[in-house]
């Protein structure tokens, strides 16, 4: 599972970084966004791995349900990151418009 997720992460990173194969993507994706995409994909597969473990022993409910608190903090963090992503996009657009003038 971990091996497969690593493979997919590398694959995605390749799509985002490889300028030859995906010119459009490479042009639109700033470095920050590449990092964010990689992060999200990594997180998605990490969560999947954790959930697969949870089927055997209830992971989220172990150690006094402390992982629920962890998940909540991660959710808050992700919401802030998504917000920053959109604000970043808006500012990039504005910068480009100012440059064009």
């Amino acid at each position, binding site marked *: 599972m971990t091996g497969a997720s690593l493979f997919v992460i590398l694959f995605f990173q390749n799509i985002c970084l490889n300028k030859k194969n995906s010119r459009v993507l490479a042009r639109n994706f700033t470095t920050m966004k590449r990092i964010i995409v990689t992060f999200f994909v990594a997180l998605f597969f990490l969560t999947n791995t954790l959930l697969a473990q949870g089927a055997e022993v209830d992971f*989220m*409910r172990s*150690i*006094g*349900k*402390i992982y*629920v*608190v962890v*998940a*909540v*903090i991660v*959710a*808050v963090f992700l*919401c*802030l990151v998504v*917000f920053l992503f959109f*604000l970043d996009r*808006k*500012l990039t657009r*504005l910068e480009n*418009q*100012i440059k064009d*003038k």
Partner: protein
Amino acid sequence: MRSNWWKILGVLILLYVFIVGMLVPLKPGITSAQPSVLQAGEVVTMTISGYNTFFTKSTDHRAWIKADDTHALAASAIKVLNDQQLEASFRLPTYLPSDEKRLTASLLIDNSFDGATVIPGNLFLQQDSTNQAMGSQAWQTSSIGELHSKSGMSFPFRAILYETIRNTYFHVSLWLAMVILLITSLVFSIRYLSTTNPIDDYKAMSFTSSGLLFGVMGITTGMIWAKDTWGTYWTWEEVKMNMTAIALLIYMAYFVLRSSFEDMEKRARIAAVYNIFAFAALIPLIYVVPRLTDSLHPGSGGNPAFGGEDLDNTMRMVFYPAVIGWTLIGVWISSLIYRARKLEEQLYDD
């Protein structure tokens, strides 16, 4: 840098909230006591499991089955198995201190290291025939003396919640921050109507955006919390969830409304009026309606969410800073949106 002090303050406060909120331990608690159905007249050896307890660290263990305020039965022998488990033997008298055949009782344990811990209403006592006078006499002989209390800072232990009581700082405080941000937005909307200064409109818009962001964060964290305490991410029977979802949709419509007007002045004026109505709907939706009916969520069915065991003084020391910290971050986010919006406006005006 001088004008940025409040941003640093917000970050420092949240850092305090994260560190103290995560590191302060929970009070010791009892998770289960087996068997839980006890027959009068028998000798029972009960296995008691604790959470965050250190049974091996003290030797002066005491345990009681507490039938009511005046009737309790002390354990005749206690054997510590490990830090989380101990065995207590009770010699139950022939009669219970009640004229009913069944009785609900609590289990109370006490030692010098963990302090006193109670599992309320978890034991069921049975008797075949009743004799209240004799029962009273048999149960009264063992009185609970001085109880210990655990030293140091700790958060309350609640069954089902366990460690997730810490989510108070990462879920409840987000909602309070949201309400503060939306009130600020309301103030700017009202100010716009009297000044018709576009700056006020932008500010109102920015505070609504950040308020909405906090609302979305609140609902997401609430869903994760609900999954492992109520068993489901979302339930349509839960009034507070539905009402907050409606309130958030009303605020999302604010942005739809804004984007549907080309004319600046018209947009600002209608958005300001809509914002006032949206706020007038928000308060009943999240604070009034949920209190009128029963629900799983604290703060519903007439029980105030803040009070009693849900939020003790130790938690207040973290909870109120959390509200201030999140609000400051919210103001910071609003200021970013406001600056981007102003840039946009300057770009189109020239």
